[in-house]
C-alpha cells in the first residue's frame, strides 16, 4: 500500500463512517484508530466503509449475546424496604428503540442492511403487522359482543 497524501479531502477517512463508529462503538476507539491508520496507508474508502459496517454489525450481535440479569430489586433483599423509601433516579430511553442494546442509529443501520441483504423480509414484517391488526380487530369485536 502506498501512503495517502496528507492534504485535501482524499486524505480524510469517510467522516460519516467515523461518526458511525464513534456513536455505535465508542468503546472500540483503538479499532477506529486502526481503520484510520490503514486508510492513511492507502486503503480505499470502500474498504473503510466495509470495515466500519462490519464492526457495527458485529457489535450489535455481540450486545444481543450478552447476559443481562433482570435486576428486579436494586440491592440485597434486606435493603428492599429502604430502597423503596428512596426512589432511585429512573433512566429514560431516548433512542426510541424498544430493543435492549440497540439504539436508534443501530436500528437504522440494521434496517438498511436488511433492505439490502434480504428485502423479501419486509413482506413478512408487513404480513405480520397486518395479521396483528386483524387479530386486534377480532378481539375488540368479540369483547363488544360479550359486553
Amino acid at each position: 500500500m502506498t501512503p495517502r497524501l496528507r492534504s485535501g479531502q482524499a486524505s480524510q477517512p469517510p467522516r460519516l463512517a467515523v461518526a458511525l463508529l464513534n456513536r455505535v462503538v465508542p468503546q472500540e476507539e483503538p479499532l477506529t484508530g486502526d481503520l484510520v491508520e490503514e486508510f492513511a496507508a492507502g486503503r480505499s474508502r470502500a474498504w473503510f466503509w466495509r470495515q466500519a459496517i462490519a464492526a457495527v454489525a458485529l457489535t450489535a450481535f455481540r450486545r444481543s449475546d450478552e447476559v443481562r440479569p433482570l435486576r428486579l430489586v436494586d440491592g440485597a433483599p434486606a435493603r428492599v424496604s429502604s430502597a423503596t423509601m428512596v426512589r432511585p433516579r429512573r433512566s429514560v430511553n431516548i433512542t426510541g428503540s424498544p430493543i435492549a442494546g440497540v439504539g436508534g442509529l443501530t436500528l437504522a443501520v440494521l434496517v438498511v442492511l436488511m433492505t439490502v441483504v434480504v428485502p423479501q423480509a419486509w413482506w413478512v414484517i408487513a404480513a405480520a403487522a397486518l395479521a396483528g391488526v386483524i387479530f386486534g380487530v377480532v378481539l375488540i369485536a368479540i369483547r363488544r359482543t360479550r359486553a
Partner: protein
Amino acid sequence: MPRSLLTDFELMILLATLRVGDDAYGVQIAREIERISGRKVLLGAAYAALDRLERNELVASTVGNPTAERGGRAKRFFRVTPRGLRAVKETRQALVALWQDLPQLKEKRT
C-alpha cells in the same frame, strides 16, 4: 470455566499475536494473518475475537498513547498470556491427534 480448545479464527489470532511479538495491535495481527494464510480479516471480527480471548484470560491488552496518524486515537497492544499459550498447545495436540491415521489425507509417494 474458560474453554481450552480454540476456534480456527481464535487460533489464528493467537498465533499471529505470538508472531508479531510485544507490539502486536489490531492492524498488525490482521496483516499477519492475511500475509501468512491469505485469509481476508475484518478488523471488527479480529477485535471481537480478541475481546473474547481477553475475557477468557488467553490474551492481555494495554492501551498506548494516542498518535496523530490515527486521528488522536490510541493503540491497544495485545500479548498472549501463559494460559493462552497452553490453549494453543492443547489445540495443536487435539488437531494433530485428529489428523493422524486418516487414509484420505495420506500423501501418495512416488
